[in-house]
């Protein structure tokens, strides 16, 4: 990967680029949150850059720094054979970043992973859904202040009428409460 390509992007978006450097052979460009989508489109479509393969988006939680979160986009260009890393800082008070699924559809699930694990919302793509955790999960597990073995509240059983299932919540049974879900043996068998 060459520094010239970084400089092309920097020249095209002088206001967007905060910093660019090479570390261990990886080229990295730190850009501002507002300009993410246009820089992404430029990287994808510009002949000579052509970063068409989206590898991943991930987020790093620098809990002691402000802004706290850093989104890291990794891109690859099959035609030029270069990798590129775009970094965007997202503050904790306003953890929103523009979504790049309009540029690469492959970023969809990685953005869901950032939401699921870090709580970063992406604007312009509808409500965020969790990817790995269940929807009722509270908190964002990969944040540094989430404990390693954090406890979660019990999810009340959803009322599902299933004729094949047998004992379970049925008509006339007390509603499942959070702290004391009814045990199946306690409930009448619903035919």
């Amino acid at each position, binding site marked *: 990967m060459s520094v010239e390509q970084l400089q092309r992007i920097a020249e095209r978006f002088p206001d967007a680029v905060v910093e660019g450097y090479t*570390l261990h052979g990886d080229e*990295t460009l730190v850009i501002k949150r507002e300009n993410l989508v246009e820089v992404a489109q430029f990287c994808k479509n510009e002949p000579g850059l052509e970063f068409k393969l989206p590898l991943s988006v991930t987020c790093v939680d620098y809990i002691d720094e402000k802004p706290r979160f850093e989104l890291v986009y990794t891109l690859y260009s099959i035609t030029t054979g270069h990798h590129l890393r775009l970094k965007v800082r997202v503050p904790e008070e306003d953890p929103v970043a523009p979504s790049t699924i309009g540029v690469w559809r492959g970023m969809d699930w990685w953005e869901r992973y950032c939401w699921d694990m870090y709580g970063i919302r992406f604007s312009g793509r509808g409500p965020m859904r969790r990817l790995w955790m269940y929807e009722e999960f509270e908190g964002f597990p990969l944040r540094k202040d989430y404990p390693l073995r954090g406890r979660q509240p019990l999810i009340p059983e959803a009322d599902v009428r299933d004729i094949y299932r047998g004992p379970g919540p049925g008509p006339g049974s007390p509603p499942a409460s959070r702290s004391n879900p009814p045990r199946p043996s306690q409930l009448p068998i619903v035919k």
Partner: protein
Amino acid sequence: MTDEKKPSLPSGRDEATPGGSAPGIEKGPTTTPPADVAQRPGGEAKPATAVPNVAPASPAAQMQANPGMVNVTIDGIPVAVPPGTPIIEAAKAAGVNIPFYCYHAGLSIAANCRMCLVETSNSPPGKLVPSCQVPVAEGQKVTTNSPRVKEQQRAVQEFLLLHHPVDCSICDQAGECKLQDYYMEHDFRPSRFDMPKWMKNKRKDLSESITLDQERCIMCTRCVRFMAEVAKEPVLGAFGRGQREVIDVFPGKKMTSNYQGNVVDLCPVGALTSKDFRFRARAYFLTATPSVCTGCARGCNTFLDHFQGVPYRYRPRENMDVNQYWMCDIGRRSYHELYEERVSTARVGNARVAPAEAVRVAAEKLKGGPVAVVVSPVLSLEDALAVMLLAREGLGAREIFLSGRADGEGDDFLLRPDRNPNRKGVELAAQAFGLTVRGWNDLGKTKAKSVLLAGVEVPVADDQFASWLGNVDAVVALASNDTPVARAAHVVLPLATHAETEGTFVNFEGRAQRFLPAYPGRDDVMAGWYWATAIGAELGLAYRYASAREVWVEQSKRLPAGALGDFDWDKTPRNRLKGVTPLPGGTVDGRPAGWRQLVPLKTPTSAA
């Protein structure tokens, strides 16, 4: 770890026009930068020698800019320090850590370890100079990372390890040992030594509390200098020459100083070990919480080393105004009372009850009749404020009685005769609420029907006071240790020690010092302000506090203005040091690596 840090701009860029011209894209070095330049990951792609905002000015300009200071350049970083500063301190100011063994800021300079040798521009040709001994000179250029210096550090490390016994698995110092750290940093090569190691006395008793292992000693003579200069009891010396050299006491002498525990901290290797702490815990399991010693009224700053809710030792924390780098043995041993014979459950009579029930019974007992409020000056300032509030408004008292530990012998260094950490603080709190402070002897003359003991430390024998308490109708005690006094009380509420809650102690000079909580208390242990507030709530007061900070914020307004100088409650000592603790098994609430978060203390509203 930096706090307010925006993504940093590459150096050399015009700060006035951010993004105006095409920003310079830099190709950083692909070699590994020095690991101790504190920047966020990725930030050191910029050459390590670049400093963002200081352009190296001409020497004349520099001298004008920093009058009275000496300008030196350390590894390319210019710093200005007062004249007479040794290079090693100037380097610390520049963020460069030069390794050392024998140097200590509080002791005289020996320069015998030879680990801190650096290259300077004005040294004799072909020679390296010890940076702990050589003061800075104007315009000096110091290099600490040239190949020559690195080879010197490697060679010194290798020499020190030649006859060092293979003791890491049984040595107390493992995990906080300079030999280990510097070996991994500077000499990570295999051993070239193929002879038997020289053997010396491995467990020599220097006193009842210090053991010396002469084989591990690297002859830095820190202990010798300390005993001679600081403890003023020069009983240690270096005897012999070459590889037979040993540290020993002079014939017929023993270490008796009250400050001998400091040599254990000073010793960079595991040669001097404290018998009190020996083999009890591994240093990397321990978390160090900044705390204050409660042994006497000086309030030496300490680190309380604890693990899984048990304190293991105190170490002094540097504070040049209070205790410099030292603390006395009496204070060191005072950690035992933090966990021995504790009251951890609320009791009415001899039966354990729920805390809410105990509070209710306590409030009932205190309701009728005059109450004698006895406050121990071991309580923190916030606890005292809450107790005074309760006394004044809840119990209608006009005076409080000061108990506390009996006086002892002071000395001319750190130890004060007053063995209570917060006498000044309790007196100020009483003053804040307009309560008169009565001495201990006045307690016998009261006609009070009930007694509220906030803290059960008494200046007379425990049994004697316990039998006196037998004549009183109702005794409610906030007790942390299960002394005869606590057992004589009708209602006992378990009090948190200063390791389990946060607060302030005011020392004999009027200096307010904050301490941080190390671990949550066992069972029903709660802080003094919590119990006072709870009893007050039962008596009809409207105050509800959820933390010591709230107590401070509301009640400190009553303190006489300027009593505590420019004390800022929120300015806490440097946050607890991370241990390299593997996750302790059996915890339900795990913690992320290195972050010692506490399960929050229960709030008062859960008591009612």
